[in-house]
């Protein structure tokens, strides 16, 4: 949940008309920096997330890995994913902190049909407003990263807020604060991308990872969470899509075909109305009063009568 007085909203889901106050505040683009190469899988970020957001403690699911549970959940927004991968005869134990990516072009917000249920702030944070959520689950299928999670009890969808309540007060997100290795950083998007590029260059030149690079997928306009990966050519190894996209039904269809369909429906109503006014009804035959072949125009007739 957010603190709307502190963060200026830039975009509102399913909202006709303008966004109040948009562009009236100076806001820097923020980003979370995650260096998977220095993550030790301590899960301090997971605990910090549960702590800060006051999530109830819950049972985990053991699936023969170090992973706390198979996927994030409505009350578990931050999860380190452990993946094992053989590289040049060695085993790579890949640990990636999984959470909302806060896309610049958010699929959840595009898909949402409820006015005000999802907002994007000027600083790039995408936040769910549960009081406006209708629980349809469209955001789940609109998300390229499988992040929004449905709560069967409350019929609402939840996900990482990038600690918008903390960021609004000038604090860093809880996970950043808890990280002991410095693999997590928070700052402006420009700073974080620069930091990630520097680190990737270091990995390429000094650590023997020639494919090291930054994950900031441009297919959705970039994300407000950037990763440094050992091998940026294969993000799938970390469970990240190489080219995340929003289904076209939530972009092309929703913003082009839907208004067109609505317009055609309205034109249909207008068409039948004017059909009645011009062509007229089909009366059972023979009609009670047979129609006069030509109805004389009385004004015209009166004019002709006068010489």
């Amino acid at each position: 949940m957010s603190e709307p007085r502190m963060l200026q909203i830039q975009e509102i889901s399913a909202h006709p008309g303008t966004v109040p106050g948009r562009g009236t505040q100076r806001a820097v683009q923020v980003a979370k920096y995650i260096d998977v190469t220095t993550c030790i899988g301590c899960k301090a970020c997971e605990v910090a997330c549960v702590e800060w957001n006051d999530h109830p403690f819950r049972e985990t699911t053991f699936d023969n890995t170090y992973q706390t549970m198979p996927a994030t959940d409505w009350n578990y927004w931050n999860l380190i994913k452990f993946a094992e991968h053989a590289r040049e005869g060695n085993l790579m134990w890949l640990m990636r902190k999984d959470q909302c990516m806060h896309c610049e072009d958010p699929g959840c917000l595009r898909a949402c049909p409820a006015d005000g249920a999802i907002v994007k702030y000027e600083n790039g944070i995408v936040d769910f407003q549960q009081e406006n959520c209708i629980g349809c689950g469209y955001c789940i299928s609109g998300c390229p990263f499988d992040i929004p999670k449905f709560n069967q009890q409350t019929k609402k969808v939840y996900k990482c807020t990038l600690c918008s309540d903390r960021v609004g007060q000038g604090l860093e997100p809880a996970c950043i604060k808890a990280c002991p290795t410095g693999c997590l950083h928070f700052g402006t998007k420009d700073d974080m991308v620069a930091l990630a590029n520097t680190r990737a260059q270091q990995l390429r030149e000094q650590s023997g990872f020639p494919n090291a690079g930054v994950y900031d997928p441009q297919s959705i306009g970039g994300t407000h969470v950037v990763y440094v990966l050992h091998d940026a050519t294969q993000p799938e190894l970390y469970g990240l899509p190489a080219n995340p996209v929003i289904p076209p039904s939530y972009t092309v269809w929703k913003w082009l075909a839907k208004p067109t369909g609505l317009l055609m429906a309205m034109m249909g109503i207008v068409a039948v109305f004017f059909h009645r006014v011009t062509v007229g009804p089909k009366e059972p035959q023979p009609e009670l009063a047979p129609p006069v072949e030509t109805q004389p125009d009385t004004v015209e007739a009166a004019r002709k009568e006068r010489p």
Partner: protein
Amino acid sequence: MSTSVERFDERARREADRVGQTVVHRGELLRHPVYTRVLHWLVAITFVLSLLTGFAIYSPWLYRWITPLFGGGPTTRFLHPWFGVAFDLFFLFQFLNWFAPMAWAKSDSRWLRRIREYVTNKEKVEAEDVGFFNAGQKLYFWAIAVSGVLFLISGLFLWFDDVVPRWLVAVSYVVHDIAGLVMLAGFVIHIYEGTAAQPGTFRSMIDGTVTRAWAWTHHPAWYRQVTGRDPREDYEQARRRQGERARAVEAWEDEQDARARRIDTPPGGPPPPD
């Protein structure tokens, strides 16, 4: 299978007629029995409710207008699939009830070729091969049947989106919309044809009856079937009678006028001024 369906339909119609009734006055024909009328309005009510709740979710322009009618966004979203299921269920019974008269025939293809004349009202009386339903009604029926199935399948995928893949939900989203627009287009025409465009039609779904003139005008082949009389002959006869009646009325009116003039001007000319 068809026989068991027929048996079911017959029994349903019989039972419905025991509860309700249809009064057929002189000069009228039974068009829709009680069972058909009840089904029609159940389908209609659930359709309108599905349409309204669906349109709230369909477009951001309508969301804030329609959701208050149903108690807010979450309630609208909760009700919509149940309205849809009820619609499909009631329509299933109507489908079985009307399956036989909705079968496509050669005369329907001929009707479609005359659609321009039909829309522009060039033909005052329908062609003699138009039966209980015309081709337009049959098309609407089959459009509902097909889109009803599409609605159900895509709707279930959207409803239980946690058990189907993401792409299937995205595709269902489009299919559901297209089915809705097809249905809406037919719905607008259906309401218009059933009320303003054809006087005398609406009562067939309320009282269950139509006038004989309505029947030979819009569904001559059905008229022939239920009365055993020739629709065109009866129409011509009615027309002749009406002409005679009009002439008689005219003559009577002329006579009245003449008599009025005689009273105004008494014999011996107008009275002398004082």
